[in-house]
């Protein structure tokens, strides 16, 4: 039997009838067309599918869509505003916190949660805060740098104010 699921994703309301076994990540990707949230493993370990559910980082592959009823979700598509990258996105660009980019949306959402809880984390706190996300390319060094740099930008600049890199080249 199908169930109604009404969710607010990146500020927009969506209502669908879904099978209970539909994973939230599949709902986002297949029903809502939000393919920025990736699926990297089948074991709840890699964190590529991380999104915010009512502000908390969650692996959307380990939640059924029906569990999201009435909740407010933020995916990677909801981070940039008015054509400007979110400071965390900008920092990943500036610090080259990625290589293939597959894990990046998950890292950015996990970092967003981390910085919401701890706006000025130490390197150790960043490493611990991102322990639920795997990157198979970078060795994490530039990811850590990116989160550190984003924390600085976000603490000094007014909320969400960021400039597009003077040529991201």
């Amino acid at each position, binding site marked *: *039997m199908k*169930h109604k699921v009404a969710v607010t994703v990146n500020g927009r309301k969506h209502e669908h009838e879904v*099978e*209970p*076994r539909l*994973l939230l990540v*599949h709902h986002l990707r297949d029903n809502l067309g939000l393919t920025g949230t990736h699926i990297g493993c*089948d*074991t*709840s*370990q890699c*964190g590529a599918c*991380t999104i915010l559910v009512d502000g*908390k*980082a*969650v*692996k959307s*592959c*380990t*939640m*059924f869509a*029906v*569990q999201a009823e009435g909740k407010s979700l933020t995916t990677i598509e909801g981070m940039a505003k008015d054509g400007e990258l979110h400071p965390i996105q900008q920092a990943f660009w500036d610090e080259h916190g990625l290589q293939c980019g597959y894990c990046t949306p998950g890292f950015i959402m*996990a970092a967003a*949660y*981390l910085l919401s809880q701890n706006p000025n984390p130490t390197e150790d706190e960043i490493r*611990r*805060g991102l*322990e*639920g*996300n795997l990157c198979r390319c970078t060795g994490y060094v530039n990811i850590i740098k990116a989160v550190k740099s984003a924390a600085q930008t976000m603490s000094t600049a007014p909320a969400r104010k960021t400039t597009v890199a003077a040529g991201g080249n």
Partner: protein
Amino acid sequence: MIPAAFEYARASSVDEASKLLNKFGEDAKVLAGGHSLIPLMRLRLAQPAALVDINGIKDLDQIKESGGKLHVGALARHVAIHGSSVVNEKLPLLAEIAGEVGDNQVRNMGTMGGVIAHADAAGDYPTLALMLDADVVTNRRTIPARDFFKDLFTTALGPDEIVTEVVFPVANGPHKYVKFRRRLFDWAIVGVAAQKMNGGWRIGLTNVGPTPVRATAVEKALHDGAKAEEAAQHASDGLDPAGDLRASPEYKKHLARVLTKRAVLQASGQAEGKQ
């Protein structure tokens, strides 16, 4: 993988959840944090006929001290337990353990009741519950932890019985949980918890058998005045752990002894830590 199809219902009270479990029959499962159940369903190692979602039940996530005991509601998430001022004051070992479960994303979802009811041999809370003589409270009765964990993934819970809270004693003396694992977010290969309480030590072992183990021989040796390293030699007394991908039975027994020594020394504030 996509889980097998199942019926789904939300419960708004414990009573309603119990009735739904009854209605769906014994192949129904309770859905709390889902972070053990959903991975098993995706691998189709679990194919419940129905899930009863208890996440909407109010007040089941409360954490409070009452009558000199620490009451942790079944839906209290690891993140809340870790950050709770009451837990940090009354049973800081539990706060420490909660902060070592999985990763941030897992801790945002996983629950006390889920870990207790799932009864994974590598679960951390069952060890603490057993060694501290905690009580598991359900919608029907109160079950002492020593009677609750029956076997691997097997508890004293009846088919329509639901854990509502776990009641721990207050203990805020020296304590340590040493969780040995390859990566931060992993389950324990072996874990050892040490808590000083009422003048004696309580020592609990994780993942060295189908259920958690209380290392009474170590507790007795410490009580009789043995040094930590001598007492810790008894940590593997009577153990018969199953080997797994990460550790042979012999290695797990070795870890039980070494980690027990570390846990007691670190709890006592002695420098012999990571080596």
